[in-house]
């Protein structure tokens, strides 16, 4: 090779680097689609059939367990996006589940809003609070984030206890109206279908997200997946913005589950939303697998089933 190769006119040969179609692109696309469709469609079909037919042969008890799995799955799905994709170790999901539940309950019982509207407003309120918390907390890194978010559970618990006029204190809030339109189908059946439709819609949203520019950007920050903030930044990813956005999104998932839970059960109290719930959800995410949002359903199913087998107490039982 010559010692020096000066380029007289930079860019004159730009056509060398110009984007050109690659012959095997179609083959690659097809392989990717097949990989996704084979596994995901099969699981999706099985789950949908199971969930649709469940009320036909199952009694109230199995349906109550399915409701629990649905609540847990939604909260865990948000955490999987935050922890599994972006690598942010958060242990505060119970706070946002509780915020969703309390916001919905307060808006319907004290301000007499329609439950549907309350659910949506609760998600906005929770999302806004989460965005604020995220901006402060996510400047920290690694295990410190999990420590601080764990402390949030305690702060939330004592806030709920002390704001008696708003939250009912230790007594909680009762007579929270149902989401079900009066007289159409039984409330419990409506809640069952509503919860699972929401869960599947959020699953579809999450899967789309994971397999997109946004999902890849989240994974660049994940140290456990060979990424890191420096790598992400030099590739143009606004790390702080993405961390706050996914933190907010995971909180909105938890809020939606919390709202549906409050309207389903009809009464809430602070003990339900303690740190134990945040830890349980984190374990569900780890057990189910954090690489895919599907892990939320697996983790929630396995741990709820195990809890029932061991005679534990469901979320729904208060």
């Amino acid at each position: 090779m010559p010692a020096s190769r000066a380029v007289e006119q930079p860019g004159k040969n730009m056509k060398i680097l110009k984007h050109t179609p690659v012959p095997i692109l179609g083959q690659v696309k097809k392989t990717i689609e097949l990989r996704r469709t084979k596994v995901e469609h099969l699981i999706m079909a099985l789950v949908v059939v199971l969930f649709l037919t469940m009320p036909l042969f199952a009694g109230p008890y199995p349906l109550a367990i399915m409701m629990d799995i649905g609540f847990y799955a939604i909260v865990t799905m948000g955490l999987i996006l935050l922890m599994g994709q972006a690598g942010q170790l958060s242990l505060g999901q119970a706070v946002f589940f509780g915020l969703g539940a309390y916001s919905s309950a307060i808006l319907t019982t004290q301000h007499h809003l329609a439950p549907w509207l309350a659910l949506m407003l609760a998600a906005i309120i929770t999302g806004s609070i989460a965005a604020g918390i995220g901006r402060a907390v996510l400047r920290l890194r690694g295990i410190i984030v999990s420590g601080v978010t764990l402390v949030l559970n305690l702060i939330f618990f004592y806030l709920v206890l002390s704001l008696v006029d708003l939250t009912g204190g230790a007594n909680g809030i009762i007579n929270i109206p149902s989401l079900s339109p009066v007289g159409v189908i039984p409330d419990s059946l409506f809640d069952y279908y509503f919860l699972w439709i929401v869960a599947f819609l959020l699953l579809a949203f999450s899967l789309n997200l994971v397999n997109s520019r946004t999902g890849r950007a989240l994974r660049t920050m994940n140290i456990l997946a060979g990424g890191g903030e420096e790598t992400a930044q030099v590739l143009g990813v606004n790390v702080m913005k993405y961390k706050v956005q996914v933190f907010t999104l995971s909180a909105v998932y938890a809020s939606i589950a919390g709202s549906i839970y409050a309207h389903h059960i009809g009464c809430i109290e602070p003990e339900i939303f303690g740190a134990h719930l945040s830890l349980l959800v984190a374990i569900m995410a780890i057990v189910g697998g954090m690489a895919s949002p599907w892990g939320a359903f697996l983790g929630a199913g396995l741990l709820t089933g195990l809890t029932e087998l061991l005679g534990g107490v469901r979320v729904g039982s208060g």
Partner: protein
Amino acid sequence: MRDYLNWAKDILISARGQGGEARDGSFLELKNVSVSFGRLTAVDQVNLVIRQGDIAAIIGPNGAGKTTMLKLISGLLPLSQGEIWFKQRRLDKISPHHIASLGVTQVFQDIQLFSNMSILENVMVGCHVWTDAGFLSTGLKLPHAKAEEKEIMERAMSKLSLVGLEQKALAPPANLSWSEQKISGLARALAAEPDLLLLDEPYGGLMTSEIEKLSQLLLKLQQGGITILMVEQRTDEALEIANQVIILDSGAKVADAAPSEIQSNEHLIATYLGGRITEGGKLHYAASE
């Protein structure tokens, strides 16, 4: 809100850079740049100009501040003193992701491919900088996001084809050789469509045949209009393809010249390149003895 304020600040700084100060038209310019970590001065008052379309190589002994220089340019480290200008924009006051969006992409020495993504997905990440679909549009698969995803995949495959790895598109990084991983990292950087590539020891860990192949690729990129600033321990290989060679020692610039000038300077060769000039006037490295 802080992000938006930072963004507004970035825009203002960029605007000042474009119109506020007369620049000499250099592509990349470091002015009196220093950085210290406590008492240690890693880079000491370095002035440097890189011309567009060149391959510039920074060489020097371990601990000379070579990698630190790259991190200063890509914004990963803050300056203690001085200014960095790129295409008449001041870089040292803006965030690394914004610097990337201006056309500066760094490839790390250890590549840092994402282990939970295929090689294709790794390269698709490189397209992040020129795409803009957000959470809502990607989650809902809106037409804009779908069209963008299609474009990202095509562009990523095109870059893999450019570096000769299109057949490995769906393989996980762990299944690739070190050389292929290095090339994949380069393809990922190219997917960002950079004007300036910062390469940290691109030849590190490669065999002679692989180095030759990589050199050919870098020259091809240069011909395509990409400016390359590389840090390299393998000085002889770097000297072969570079137009400009910068020698750093203990954070200070001790030489900045064309390779031919460096190769004819006995003192520099003996001190920094570990070689000598033979009686016949040829460069002879101690390592080859």
